[in-house]
């Protein structure tokens, strides 16, 4: 067959694409379980990081099983509802109306008392950002935070996942003295706000900083009823 004819070219391209597609699809299916497992372990590591427990990929599962004593879902009225907290997709929940939303809570026993880990999910500049914020038993003081992102600018917005940024959240408060939810302000230099509600934003990462601030505000609002109910 003439190698330069149109028929040959078309046939060649078609067959090649089919073969490649078949190979890729089967490899992807074969490796899916191992990949899913890795994502799960990473999530456990992130949850543990938000209560300031360090873990490696090997130890994460054991530590998680030991420290996380309970996980459940709550609705925005603060009532527990049925369902699997670990596999709940926050992205889907945030898309629902406020009343239908269910949010996961992870309860962790640390050496410094019982902590509640609240997952948060929002939008940065280039894509989603998410994280885990743990609060102490007073349901007000932040014990630790861990953030991650899909594709924020390295060196700028991506700095939200560095410990230098996350450390700032320790000891900050979600509610003010009158019990009003104020969340955490991610501030620029010179912006005036009460110290206990403020962390320093990232220079050059303003949109990511603002996205993070909005994410915390929105998601704490969802947890507000739960937090108020369990205050002691």
């Amino acid at each position, binding site marked *: 067959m003439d190698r330069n004819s149109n028929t040959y070219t078309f046939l060649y391209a078609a067959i090649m694409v089919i073969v490649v597609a078949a190979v890729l699809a089967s490899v*992807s299916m074969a490796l899916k379980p191992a990949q899913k497992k890795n994502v799960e372990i990473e999530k456990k590591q992130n949850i543990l990081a938000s209560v300031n427990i360090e873990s490696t990929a090997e130890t994460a599962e054991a530590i998680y099983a030991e420290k996380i004593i309970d996980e459940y879902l709550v609705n925005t009225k603060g009532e527990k509802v049925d369902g699997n907290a670990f596999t709940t997709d926050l992205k889907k929940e945030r898309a629902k109306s406020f009343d239908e939303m269910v949010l996961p809570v992870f309860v962790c026993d640390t050496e410094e008392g019982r902590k509640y880990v609240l997952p948060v999910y929002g939008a940065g500049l280039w894509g989603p950002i998410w994280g885990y914020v743990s609060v102490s038993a007073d349901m007000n003081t932040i014990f630790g935070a861990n953030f991650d992102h899909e594709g924020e600018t390295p060196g700028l917005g991506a700095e939200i996942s560095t410990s230098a940024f996350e450390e700032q959240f320790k000891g900050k408060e979600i509610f003010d003295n009158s019990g009003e939810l104020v969340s955490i302000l991610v501030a620029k230099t010179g912006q005036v706000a009460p110290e206990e509600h403020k962390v320093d934003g990232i220079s050059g990462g303003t949109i990511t900083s603002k996205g993070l601030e909005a994410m915390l505000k929105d998601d704490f609002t969802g947890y507000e009823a739960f937090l108020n109910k369990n205050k002691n």
Partner: protein
Amino acid sequence: MSEPLFSKKNLKLLSDPLNDSNPITVQVLGICSALAVTAQLKPSIVMTISVMAVLAFANVIISLLRNTIPNRIRIIVQLVVIAALVILVDQVLRAYVYDVSKQLSVFVGLIITNCIIMGRLEAFALGNRPWQSFLDGIGNAAGYGFILIVVGFFRELLGSGSLLGYKIIPESWYIVNGGFYENNGLMVLSPMALIVVGVIIWVQRSRNRKLIED
């Protein structure tokens, strides 16, 4: 086909890219990934292995197909082969070395656009037999990876005081612990990779006079 597998000519395919026609220092190809992944030694090594796998297999596949590929779509055929191999590598990394795969993130995908790979397919594999193409692929990937590993070695050692994550500089040397030493923060940033590559080129040319242009 009477030629032995490791004849002088074939061995030259392996050794040339390490020195006289090194893809990075002589041809100045693949610089972008060389800057991006070399802050530590481990990603440099993984990137080297990944590129080696992709380049060797792509070279062999293209060489096997070289008499069937329609001339008008040969670049597309090359791209499909490279892209498929890169996706395979990415999937394997994600399944077995997840943390490294996160670190390399977009750069694994960018192997597709690594000029070295397309360059070798177009310049070598399309006109040579599979075995020679395989050697050429391994050789060029080794030439690329050698530079990557050297750069990664110095950047991790001087920038973080460790190698492959293990501390090399004793803790007591650091100023914070009352010592005299401080890590060079610039080493962790990508501009320093360019400077290290520059130094390597300088050293290489001073030892290999025939590389010096007039």
